[in-house]
């Protein structure tokens, strides 16, 4: 096993000096055992076609070293699954039949075994099926973390991805959604707080192949002193995606010095009849807002905490698990304990 692997590659490279074309995931110090393949070859073949956001090297790693769990949701079935017990490397394959609904929640708030928690997920969504995937990461500051998603959607299927990242040391999220069926859709919402000594590296890709597909990528977070964040977002309108729309929005609240804040929002377009847009807003709380808050009796620290809370809860409030949402709220509160002038 290699000590380092390349992950989160941009679908279309840009200037090398920016060092955003991909990232490196450090695996040194990990001792992983090869796993026997427990999934039948037909299913394995179907899932092997699916591209994930973190890329091929993560795929090979989890293929070899992660125990795979296959979850099959039958036609017209509705199911909620919550997963909170993990190995160091984990692989999940979700086969979602026509007209079914799956709400799957990965609660990564504690993990004691190793220095890395890695989760790879792949989804096949048949016609008119819906998936809501949630991942919440609140690990301690010694753990590295990755969460990788790949999905392929048939006609009128929809995929929603909520991710909240509040802890860990170096975190990586990759998500590649192939909208292969007409009128299929992808919606993603991410909320994060990245503090000193932490980094968050993201790569979201929406490949829109078919007619009238929709995608929406929304990332909103807080970057504290000495924190590092890289956001890559790609909406790729392929030939044949007529009538499709795609939007990316990024909001970054910066509340400390010595930050590294990189953003690469791409829109790739090979089809005429589409609408794609991107908007980004990066900065600290303006003096006007702080003045307004002060005039209402809210001090600077409270104002920053309120704004940070709003940035994360924009995503967290959509999670369909009340206890987990409360846990997130407490975690945010704790992040600001005794903090002056931001994180």
């Amino acid at each position, binding site marked *: 096993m290699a000590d380092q692997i390349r992950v989160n590659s941009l679908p279309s490279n840009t*200037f090398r000096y920016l060092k955003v074309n991909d990232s490196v995931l450090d695996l040194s110090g990990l001792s992983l055992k090869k796993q026997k393949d427990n999934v039948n070859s037909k299913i394995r073949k179907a899932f092997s076609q699916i591209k994930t956001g973190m890329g091929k090297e993560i795929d090979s790693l989890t293929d070899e070293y992660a125990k795979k769990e296959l979850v099959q949701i039958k036609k017209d079935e509705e199911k909620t699954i919550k997963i909170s017990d993990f190995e160091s490397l984990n692989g999940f394959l979700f086969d979602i039949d026509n007209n079914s609904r799956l709400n799957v929640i990965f609660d990564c708030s504690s993990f004691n075994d190793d220095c890395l928690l890695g989760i790879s997920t792949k989804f096949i969504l048949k016609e008119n099926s819906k998936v809501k995937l949630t991942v919440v990461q609140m690990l301690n500051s010694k753990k590295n973390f990755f969460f990788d998603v790949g999905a392929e959607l048939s006609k009128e299927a929809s995929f929603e991805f909520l991710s909240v990242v509040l802890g860990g040391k170096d975190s990586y999220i990759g998500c590649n959604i192939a909208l292969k069926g007409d009128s299929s859709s992808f919606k993603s919402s991410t909320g994060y707080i990245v503090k000193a000594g932490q980094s968050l590296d993201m790569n979201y890709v929406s490949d829109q192949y078919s007619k009238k597909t929709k995608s929406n990528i929304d990332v909103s977070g807080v970057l504290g002193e000495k924190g590092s964040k890289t956001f890559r977002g790609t909406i790729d309108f392929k030939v044949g995606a007529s009538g499709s729309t795609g939007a990316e929005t990024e909001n970054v609240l910066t509340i400390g010095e010595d930050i590294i804040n990189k953003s690469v*929002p791409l829109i790739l377009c090979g089809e005429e009849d589409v609408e794609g847009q*991107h908007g980004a807003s990066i900065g600290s709380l303006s003096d006007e807002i702080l003045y307004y808050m002060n005039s209402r009796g809210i001090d600077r620290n409270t104002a920053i905490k309120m704004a940070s809370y709003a940035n994360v809860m924009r995503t967290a409030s959509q999670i369909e698990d009340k206890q987990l949402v409360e846990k997130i709220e407490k975690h945010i509160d704790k992040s600001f304990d005794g903090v002056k002038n931001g994180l």
Partner: protein
Amino acid sequence: MPDKSKIVETDRSLYDFRYEENSKDYHREESGITREIVENISKEKDDPEWMRDFRLHCLDIYNNTDMPNWGPDTSGLDMNKIAAYVRHKAGMKSDWEDVPQEIKDTFERLGIPQAERLSLAGVGAQYDSELVYHNLRKEVAETGVVYTDLESAMKGEYEEMIKTHFMKLVPPTDHKYAALHGAVWSGGSFVYVPKGVKVDIPLQSYFRLNAAGAGQFEHTLIIVDEGADLHFIEGCSAPKYNVANLHAGCVELYVGKNAKLRYSTIENWSKNMYNLNTKRAIVEENGIMEWVSGSFGSHVSYLYPTTILKGENSKMDYTGITFSGAGQDLDTGAKVIHQAPNTTSVMASKSIAKDGGIGTFRSSVVITSKAINSKASVSCDSLMLDSISRADTIPAMDIRTDKADVGHEARIGRISDEAVYYLMSRGIKEADARALIVSGFADSVSKELPLEYAVEMNNLIKLEMNGNM
């Protein structure tokens, strides 16, 4: 709605006419990039020793630098088939009447002498590898403004100034074609605007690459001193050949304290051209750098004017339009590096793709930790005119301070059927309606140009949209 009109071939006769070169009047170096060719060029130009050594140093860098792993395909460019140096034996003239007839005809058809008479403070005209004409109005020269060819400046009283500034902003290590430029550069202009001098009407350099299978490597060096003000216009064109041509020019701009420079370009290279040009500016305290850029020609373009905002309160403004038609892959945009507090940058780009053309907007905004209270804004609109073309936007931002405001917007879309239908219901033909909408889309760029150049740009849009003017 009626079917969309289809334009098979555009009429570029205004730009595509040419005179054949002959060995009696022209000197042409062997094709390829070798030490011997670089030494020959240096000898031809009677370089000072430091420049000869610099060229050879650049050649080493060129030979040891790899190609970028991003951007359009350049595999059709074979450097072994490119002649790096072609010149008319007549040399440079300061009187238009003394310029060789076929060169004079070429520039007259392009309207350069007329523009000089009507609206320019000075003109430089480069034909293949060398300037053939350079002139500056007497009243402008009397203010101390220097506008001359770079080679003369390098050997005269400005040698030290050239030595201090030449390829310091764009070092040969920047990329492979910057190194190539350093090795074989030829022609181009040197402009110096002294402290406090405001040049009311623009200077213009026009570059014409007439020879087939050749490269043009002109170097433009402009120094606008403290409190001075200049508008410099650059135009370029070439006739079309069935072999690849290369343009790897270099522009270095120094904008002093409280100074202002506007650099406008209308690029209309022929569609066999690889346009791998590098432009960079550095701006001191309270200085302002403005780029206005229209890219219409070339087979492949890599073009990203870069601004280093070095001084506090310095500003950069980029307004650009790119029109990619059949057989074109134009990768354009801008780069900015905020290095000082309270700096501001604004990028506004429009791109249009049709007939299988590929238009890519690529940008980079870097705000260093020292650049507190800086502001950056990027907006990019792309218009797709059919489903066989491509329009990509690849912006990147790297922000290292919490005290900066950065905004970014990008949109990709098509001409609305409703707008075309509305115009057609008022008696306008479909092709004209579409051209009118595209002209409106490009309006934010054309209004930044002097009237004559805005008219030329609108004519180019009409040419691309309708196939005739």
